[in-house]
């Protein structure tokens, strides 16, 4: 074994700082990929968790969805209610994965794992982006299970594989934003118990104040405004457009989700250092 150090020039070397920074920047996607791979490895070692997490969305579809389908009370523009509901439950399952991701990072903080990750030559935004998209990967895998269940229950999904892939992409983007929101909250409250409480407190309001269960037009005006600023509404709008073909503003939906995810990554990156002080 030699003692050569990859990437780090000796002090006083002539390597320009700009080129060195560029090299680090070019490695960012690889860093994010590494942290996503880590999540896949965890899922592989503990697939039971994935299955137990699909119980709740399954109950929403099987009990709530089929019951309200029988009532035929919801004005869904001619779309069967179960079809209308499925993308909402898909987004909800991703939200539930992501909103508690901060708890995982606080666990990693307590265990010293986060400190070790932060001592690697990985910029903090890359760590946060990696964690956020890892949440997205987990949400997407869980989403596939929910989609299969929806098909079994008779939901008519698009047969276009590109649209399904795009829908999973939207799921990843939305989960990345909510994971960042969770990381921001983790950086502010610093304790797992507090974050669990906040996660519980905001999860259902986010879900109910969105177009997941019913059209926004049915809501009172004040709630409609909340739904308009709720990123979950844009995620569900895009998922419905892609999966069941309802009219959707895809470009707007994806732009808003992408902007929110980037803002979330920057904000969470700025707060990450608080976790290890």
């Amino acid at each position, binding site marked *: *074994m*030699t*003692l*050569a*150090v*990859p*990437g*780090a*020039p*000796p*002090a*006083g070397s002539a390597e320009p700082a700009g080129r*060195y920074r560029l090299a*680090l920047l070019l*490695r960012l996607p*690889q*860093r994010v990929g*590494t942290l996503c*791979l*880590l999540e896949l*490895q*965890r899922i592989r*070692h*503990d697939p039971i968790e994935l299955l137990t997490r699909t119980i709740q969305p399954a109950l929403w579809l099987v009990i709530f969805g089929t019951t309200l389908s029988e009532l035929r009370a919801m004005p869904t523009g001619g779309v069967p209610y179960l079809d209308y509901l499925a993308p909402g439950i898909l987004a909800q399952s991703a939200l539930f994965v992501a909103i508690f991701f901060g708890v995982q990072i606080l*666990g990693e903080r*307590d*265990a*010293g*794992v986060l*400190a*070790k*990750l*932060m*001592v*690697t*030559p*990985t*910029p903090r935004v890359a760590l946060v982006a990696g964690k956020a998209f890892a949440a997205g990967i987990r949400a997407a895998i869980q989403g596939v299970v929910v989609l299969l269940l929806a098909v079994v229950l008779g939901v008519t999904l698009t047969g276009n594989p590109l649209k399904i892939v795009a829908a999973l992409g939207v799921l990843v983007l939305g989960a990345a934003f909510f994971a960042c929101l969770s990381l921001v909250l983790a950086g502010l409250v610093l304790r797992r118990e507090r974050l669990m409480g906040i996660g519980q407190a905001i999860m259902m309001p986010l879900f109910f104040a969105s177009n997941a269960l019913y059209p926004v037009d049915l809501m009172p005006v004040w709630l409609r405004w909340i739904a308009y600023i709720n990123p979950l509404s844009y995620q569900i709008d895009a998922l419905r457009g892609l999966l069941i073909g309802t009219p959707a503003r895809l470009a707007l939906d994806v732009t808003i989700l992408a902007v929110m995810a980037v803002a979330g990554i920057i904000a969470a990156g700025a707060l990450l*250092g608080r976790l*290890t*002080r």
Partner: protein
Amino acid sequence: MTETSAGDLAVCIRGLGHRFKQTEAVVDLDLDVRSGEIFGLLGPNGAGKTTTIRVLVTLLPMQTGQLQVFGHDVRRHKMRVRQLIGYQPQQLSADGSLTGWENVMLFARLFDVPRRDRRQRVDESLEMMGLADVAGRLVGTYSGGMVRRLELAQALINRPRLLILDEPTLGLDPVARATVWERVADLRARFGTTVLMTTHYLEEADQICDRVALMDRGRLRAVGSPAQLKTALGPGTRLDDVFRHYAGHKFEESGGYRDARSTRRTAGRLG
């Protein structure tokens, strides 16, 4: 302390200070760690050892003073400093939900070990720490001593010039402690790696360290080789006598409860 040129220094600390609100954790610390030596930072809880280490590894911001690692300023060149160091924190910090091999491979990727060398490097690191046979097992099934050796394998994956170990044997039984020290000594002997470590166990520091610094309440009290420090106070002196001489009180392990609790919690997490 003998004069050392800047080029020989792995770590150069001048006037380092760090406060947590009203508490002065480190006060005006001057310290040099020479390239290739095993250097022990010793002191009871609250001495400022871990704070010094955490500033050095860029986890805490520099507040006052200057700190260089192989000539790189820690304040201005964080990424370069991180590429030069391997770090083992106080807690048992391997990921219990992954295998040993996956734990080491994660750090190989994050430290940009070239793709063509990664597998071999991971295998070598695990082999060196005597973990090759259990590399495919989930770390949750490892003993505390095995986790510590795995962490050393992780810390070595980037072939660091400076290995920083924060209480590497805390919570381990005597046999596991001896094994960890054997591996650390082996590393220095084979690769000339500079080792900076903190420990509560003065007798172990006495045996393994080339030089030690005694810290108390954020201040440096004495620096030198264990032999020099003991000889200066007369025959039959032990390191805890040296500490008492310079600090004015006994080397207490008060406050160790917090560490023990943390270690137990981590052991529980790892299964």
